[in-house]
């Protein structure tokens, strides 16, 4: 049985001198959510196009649901759903007609198609508006409808390019819950790109960080935090003098120090022990009210990776 829904090996695509995707190698477990993180123009959309067999790679290879995108693009598209960069909705048609069209494209029987459209539209609270032309709808409504369309034919693997862009916070949470349900109950695999790192942290079993076509890091959010993220200690108190801050900055275990009002945040290198900190601050006559130790968020990991790449 296939363990990985997606595997790439040195996958590359160039456009003239631009390396849009540069030697990326990763895998996505079947029945999991994989988040592809990166700034605009980093190669996320090109990667989706390569995996769907819409573009041919310049070099390297990939396997999607056991198929080769170059040779078997048709079979891949048969078994996948996609919400790409644009919603791809026919704005002159009604919401019902949009879903009905793609239901017909995937040759769903009439009764199943009708029931599925009702199920999906009721779930996103748009069934009462099914006969409205989509053109006048808000971005969030269109995004929800487009996501429903991607799931219409119950695909094994779904590609979602910025799926929650344009959704309000409530709709975003509902969408995340839907995705988690889909994966847990139906074993669907989800490959999503997002700028929303908090969302990726809550949703994704594994993430990959891409920049300028290069995959900088791949792993679970915890692994990435462990590899890249630095522990940090937040001290609430008073008496954070310049001298104290300068001395702290020079400490070998300290990566960075910031003060905002009565909050001192000390970022430690890797998993450095923070035991030295409180005694040191006490000797500096700092009044300590509270000390909190925590791990860096995925956002901080992402920023660290971006900064490291800038330095390199």
């Amino acid at each position, binding site marked *: 049985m296939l363990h990985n829904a997606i595997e790439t090996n040195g996958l590359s695509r160039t*456009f003239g001198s631009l390396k849009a995707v540069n030697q990326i190698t990763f895998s996505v477990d079947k029945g999991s959510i994989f988040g592809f993180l990166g700034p605009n123009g980093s190669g996320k959309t090109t990667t989706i*196009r390569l995996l*769907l*067999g*819409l*573009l*041919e790679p310049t070099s390297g290879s990939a396997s999607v649901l056991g198929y080769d995108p170059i040779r078997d*693009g*048709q079979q891949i*598209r*048969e078994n*996948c759903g*996609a919400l*790409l*960069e*644009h*919603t*791809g*909705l*026919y*704005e*002159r*048609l009604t919401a019902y*007609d949009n879903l009905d*069209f*793609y239901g*017909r*494209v*995937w*040759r769903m029987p009439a009764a199943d198609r009708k029931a599925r459209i009702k199920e999906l539209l009721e779930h996103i609270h748009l069934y009462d508006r099914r006969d409205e*032309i989509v053109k006048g709808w808000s971005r969030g409504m269109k995004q929800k409808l487009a996501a429903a369309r991607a799931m219409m034919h119950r695909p094994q693997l779904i*590609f979602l390019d910025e799926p929650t862009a344009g959704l309000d916070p409530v709709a975003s949470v509902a969408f995340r819950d839907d995705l988690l349900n889909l994966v847990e109950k139906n074993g669907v695999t989800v490959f999503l790109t997002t700028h929303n790192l908090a969302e990726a942290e809550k949703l994704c079993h594994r993430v990959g960080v891409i920049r300028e076509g290069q995959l900088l890091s791949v792993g679970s959010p915890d692994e990435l935090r462990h590899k890249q993220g630095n522990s940090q200690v937040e001290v609430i108190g008073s008496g954070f003098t310049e001298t104290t801050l300068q001395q702290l900055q020079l400490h070998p275990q300290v990566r960075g120090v910031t003060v905002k009002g009565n909050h001192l945040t000390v970022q430690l290198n890797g998993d450095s022990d923070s035991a030295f900190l409180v005694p040191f601050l006490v000797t500096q006559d700092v009044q300590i009210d509270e000390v909190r130790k925590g791990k860096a968020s995925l956002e901080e990991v992402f920023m660290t990776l971006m900064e490291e790449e800038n330095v390199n």
Partner: protein
Amino acid sequence: MLTDMMTIIRKDLKEVLTARGTGKRGGWMSVLIFIGLLGILMPLQTGVEWLTNPILPILWSWIPVFLVVSVVTDSFAGERERNTLETLLASRLTDQSILFGKIGAAVLYGWGLGMVGNLLGAVTVNVVFWQGRLMFYQPVPYLAFVFASFLVSLLMGSIGVLVSLNAPTARAAYQKLSIVMLVVWFLPTIGITALPINIRENIGKVLENINLPMVGVGLLAVILIADLVLIFVARQRFKRAKLILN
């Protein structure tokens, strides 16, 4: 493939009907105006001759061709412009079913409406100018007209899809194709009228002596071959990667 083609045709026709007005009602209204013009107004003006003189319906056959052009230019360029093309290309549909579905929708719309207009024209003549017996178009010229108008619609559909494949917008595609139409349709007419009178008389004499049905069949064969060649070229030029990156 036929089922997939029909799915595309069905969707495209729905879009055409909703594009011509503010909703479905507006779209149907323009269809009814067209059918009313070709099926009621023109036959009313010409009377029984509408059915007996085969030249008359042929003279108005350019209207359905224009309808084909207006739909086919929107096929790929319109989808690209409205950002729906990539999602369509990411579906399970094969290249052939998308391409032939797009051509089919345009031909079915233009040629189909033309045929409905012609049939309604026969009804109008019989109702208004009743001659004591049921009248219809002369069978052989009518069948030749049905076949010929289908081939010409297919020709314009194939040329249109080729233009639409590479045009950035539906408007740009329509402008390009209008120029092609001008060259193919109107320039020969203008050219003939510009010829010196003695040459025109000689051409007339030649035409009087030739076997017109044979020439007609030959012409249809040429159009049919042109259709097949253009469809083949369109098939070769249909590349998903190119369509997405354009």
